[in-house]
């Protein structure tokens, strides 16, 4: 648990249906998360994106689920997942550094200080290590959350709208940073924003109440240029699909 092997990452297979208070939320959804790739799940609010992500994370949901979730190696997923949400979920009473290594404290283990320091360098917050989260800007806080996610070292990274609360510029910076630092991880990015998907998705699925529609992603490695014609076209096409749904 924690500090997982940074070697070959794993792939995940999700298949199933969910009902919420008797009405179907989604039906027969099949979602494969491929090893070392970013899979973007794009959809409007309330369509059930977070529900899928939370099912994979084995977190409580507001629906009944019928289906199965499995890892490529047949082993359970628990202990190999890192999770990041829209809120940074930093503990306000702990320092930035303590927040990064909070996972070890929660598992009753001694924090790995050099690992923590490395990550703080990578997210550019070394000088803020001893500060409390309330002393940081929203973008800096989300960088701490990213460092904490990386500290966990899980091969599977579940991101639930991690950029949604950020302003446009901070958001673009965070997309770059996340793409760089989560290289080689298997990532599920849940988002309602076509920009996130066009810049970061190796594969993009648009979720509607009828299920998933896979869209062709723009060419090129991620993070894709925010202003390249292809990214912008893809973004527009995704928005159109979203609005048609």
């Amino acid at each position, binding site marked *: 648990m924690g500090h997982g092997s940074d070697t070959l990452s794993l792939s995940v297979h999700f298949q199933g249906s969910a009902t919420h208070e008797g009405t179907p939320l989604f039906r027969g959804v099949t979602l494969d998360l491929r090893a070392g790739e970013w899979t973007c799940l794009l959809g409007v609010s309330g369509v059930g994106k977070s529900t899928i992500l939370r099912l994979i994370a084995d977190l409580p949901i507001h629906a009944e689920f019928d289906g199965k979730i499995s890892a490529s190696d047949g082993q359970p997923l628990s*202990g190999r997942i890192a999770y990041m949400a829209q809120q940074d*979920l930093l503990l306000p009473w702990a320092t930035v550094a303590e927040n990064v290594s909070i996972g070890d*404290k929660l598992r009753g283990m001694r924090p790995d200080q050099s690992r923590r320091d490395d990550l703080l360098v990578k997210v550019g917050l070394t000088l803020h290590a001893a500060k409390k989260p309330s002393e940081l*800007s929203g973008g800096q806080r989300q960088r701490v959350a990213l460092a904490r996610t990386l500290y966990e070292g899980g091969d599977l990274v579940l991101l639930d709208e991690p950029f949604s609360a950020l302003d446009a510029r901070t958001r673009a910076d965070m997309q770059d940073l996340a793409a760089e630092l989560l290289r080689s991880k298997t990532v599920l990015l849940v988002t309602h924003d076509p920009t996130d998907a066009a810049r970061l998705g190796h594969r993009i699925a648009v979720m509607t109440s009828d299920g998933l529609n896979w869209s062709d992603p723009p060419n090129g490695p991620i993070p894709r240029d925010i202003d390249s014609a292809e990214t912008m076209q893809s973004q527009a096409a995704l928005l159109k699909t979203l609005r048609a749904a």
Partner: protein
Amino acid sequence: MIRVLRPLVAIGLALATWQGIIIAFEPPRFIFPSPARVAETWWENRMLIAWHTGVTMSEVALGLIIGVTVGCATALTLATSGFARLALKPILVFSQALPVFALAPILVLWLGYGMGSKIAMATLIIYFPVTSAFYDGLMRTPPGMLDLANVMGASPRRILWVIRVPAAIPSFVSGLRLAAVYAPIGAVIGEWVGASNGLGYLMLLANGRAKTDLMFAAMITLGVCSVILYLVTLAATNRIAPETPSNQPRG
């Protein structure tokens, strides 16, 4: 500066009003003594008042320690055990529906005229506010933090000590501040019902003998001690839980 000045102005106004009533209505001394008369009596009886203050404040301190300890233990039990919530919570709520004052005679009957029954009163009167404030805090951990901890593979025990308890500290502190206000009330009620020591006893005694000036002196001493207790609690807790929350992100 204003922080010091404001209470002084308020005290000055109160004294002026008091003196004004004396001048305007000239009430008999045994009904409503003048501020000067009360001050004089206070000074003449300072050793007596100090002794009874010591007794009452010891009862308050012990009541606070026991009440806060038992209250925290109850809140932790309720927060961690569904069975305890099922079994204990109705009893707790029902017990709170009973006025604690009604219990005072029984406590004196059981525990006697000494400090025991007063400590029990102070304990009982603060037990519920402390328990419910801390319990509420423990149950209102931001759900996202619990999700995160669960994905990280934390045990319920670790989640309790690393996340839920620290997150509940501000709630606990507001319960503690209430307790500091209630505890002296509990002790004095206990003393009224039956005692041979303490400020409550002294007030009753003075009142019974028409020594209204002494009764006022004891009452004001009680008030001043209660305010000091509250301010000390406020100062002691202000660092861990400031009155104005500053934990919001700056954006």
